[in-house]
């Protein structure tokens, strides 16, 4: 990959664009516009239809995040709809960021569901390609991919800023004014391409991105330097993914088995070292030690990330471990979350 020679690129001027808080009516947008260091979390909807499962997870995130993602059939496994779960969350006082993938819907269904989501009061959207169905629980499904994530961002921007459906027809009463987000993986290949792809997302219409989990700080700093030099960070808000590790095994699994994920050996060694003096049969104590160390590493990483130029916030992904978000946010000095009047 090192043989690739990428030409220089500068972001096109966007000085005429509305300030982020005026593009949409979202709390997260106001936090970002105020220059506050944003905190987002993540809520995975249940595999069933029990609203209480959403409510109890939402309560764990309340007051420690500015908004929380609601995943859309994450890992291509069927779960409660992100829009429905998002509305249940809203009733608990947590602002949702609805995820939507290009895998499951064509442009008609996307626009229809997002008009509906907006009507229900949802204001933040994350536009994703979606994990391939072969990794989920319906591998025989037909995937859609009518449009890709870049075209999705563009469609949402045109709906909001030009009041137009994707086909060009006018939206009666105006388009939905979502805060539009995308995903970014700083560690995928070709590595040199990653800042350019982020630039494309900003040009396509992203107001913000959330990144893949970051463990490799050195590589992330290099990425951010390129992103800042290109002028991308001035045009979109970059919220950096962090997550507490639960065990040394999880760290190794992420390093070895998750595409596009790098976990430095130093972190794996640290996780392994923390249980060195605990009997291998003493599972509860080992798990407690691992979790405590995972939380400590996460807190340190947030503090490091906060100092990197161009970073607008952190996205704390504590998957099936929502209880960890509050202590992490608190110890990292991110609480209380700002209250900003609309």
């Amino acid at each position: 990959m090192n043989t690739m020679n990428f030409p220089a690129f500068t972001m096109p001027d966007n000085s005429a664009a509305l300030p982020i808080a005026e593009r949409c009516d979202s709390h997260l947008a106001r936090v970002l516009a105020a220059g506050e260091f944003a905190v987002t979390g993540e809520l995975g909807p249940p595999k069933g239809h029990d609203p209480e499962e959403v409510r109890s997870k939402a309560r764990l995130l309340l007051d420690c995040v500015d908004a929380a993602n609601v995943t859309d059939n994450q890992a291509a496994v069927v779960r409660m709809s992100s829009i429905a779960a998002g509305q249940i969350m809203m009733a608990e006082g947590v602002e949702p960021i609805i995820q939507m993938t290009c895998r499951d819907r064509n442009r008609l269904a996307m626009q229809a569901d997002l008009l509906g989501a907006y009507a229900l009061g949802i204001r933040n959207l994350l536009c994703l390609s979606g994990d391939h169905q072969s990794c989920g629980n319906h591998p025989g499904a037909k995937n859609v991919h009518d449009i890709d994530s870049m075209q999705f961002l563009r469609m949402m921007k045109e709906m909001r800023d030009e009041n137009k459906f994707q086909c060009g027809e006018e939206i009666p009463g105006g388009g939905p004014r979502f805060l539009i987000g995308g995903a970014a993986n700083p560690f995928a290949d070709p590595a040199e391409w990653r800042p350019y792809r982020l630039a494309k997302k900003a040009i396509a219409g992203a107001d913000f991105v959330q990144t893949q989990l970051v463990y490799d700080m050195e590589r992330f700093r290099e990425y951010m330097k390129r992103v800042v030099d290109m002028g991308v960070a001035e045009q979109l808000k970059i919220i950096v993914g962090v997550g507490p590790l639960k065990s040394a095994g999880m760290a190794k699994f992420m390093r070895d088995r998750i595409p596009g994920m790098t976990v430095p050996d130093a972190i794996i060694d640290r996780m392994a070292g923390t249980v060195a003096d605990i009997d291998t049969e003493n599972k509860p104590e080992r798990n407690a030690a691992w979790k405590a160390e995972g939380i400590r590493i996460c807190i340190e990483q947030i503090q490091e990330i906060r100092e990197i130029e161009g970073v607008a916030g952190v996205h704390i992904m504590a998957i099936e471990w929502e209880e960890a978000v509050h202590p992490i946010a608190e110890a990292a000095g991110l609480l209380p979350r700002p209250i900003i009047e609309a």
Partner: protein
Amino acid sequence: MIVAEQKPLNEIKAMLEGCNKVLAVGCGTCVAVCFAGGRQEVGLLSASLRMSTDIDGAAVDIDETIVQRQCEKEYNAPLEAELEQYDAILSLGCGVGVQSLAQQFPGKRILPALNTKFMGYPAEHGIWEDRCQGCGNCVLHLTGGVCPVSRCPKSLFNGPCGGSQGGICEVDQETECAWNVICENQLRLGLFDEMMEIHPAKDWSSARDGGHRRIVREDVRIPDEEKA
């Protein structure tokens, strides 16, 4: 070429249930080149079916033949004279070949022995790869000669996505990331600007999404009065 592969023997056997005499018809064009439905494959499959149905105690009599191009009726026409004696035709043609026979011989059951996979490229002896899905609106001039519709599992137009790792696609460890190749090609050709364009949403109406497809070329059609 059109690339196909033979269905599992048991599946083919199940289709033959109730038949006493069958004509296996190969095709001498694409499926012969990809070793799925040429003369040799017709012979091997017929022999396997004869043996297998015999062991099961319900032997099916199978005759073998091949036509040069099963997708064109002129090549299939000579089969008609022999068909009466058969309960069914087992076609080793592609999906187009099977349907040509079905259309041409409406009184006869036509059974497909192959699964038609894609329009593909023989990457090496014994390996074929999908190269074209016939979407009807070619973009290869914009993508460094690599088709993202057929070669990217998500048919992305603005890749490479976050699942590209070491030039390999996250969906399948055996598959090159098409957009990684596009990126390399565009850089080599000095066309990286194309990579930075936001390729707009594709108009899929030229693909099967637009309805059943048909091409009418008035310049090459034969006038009705001359057809007779």
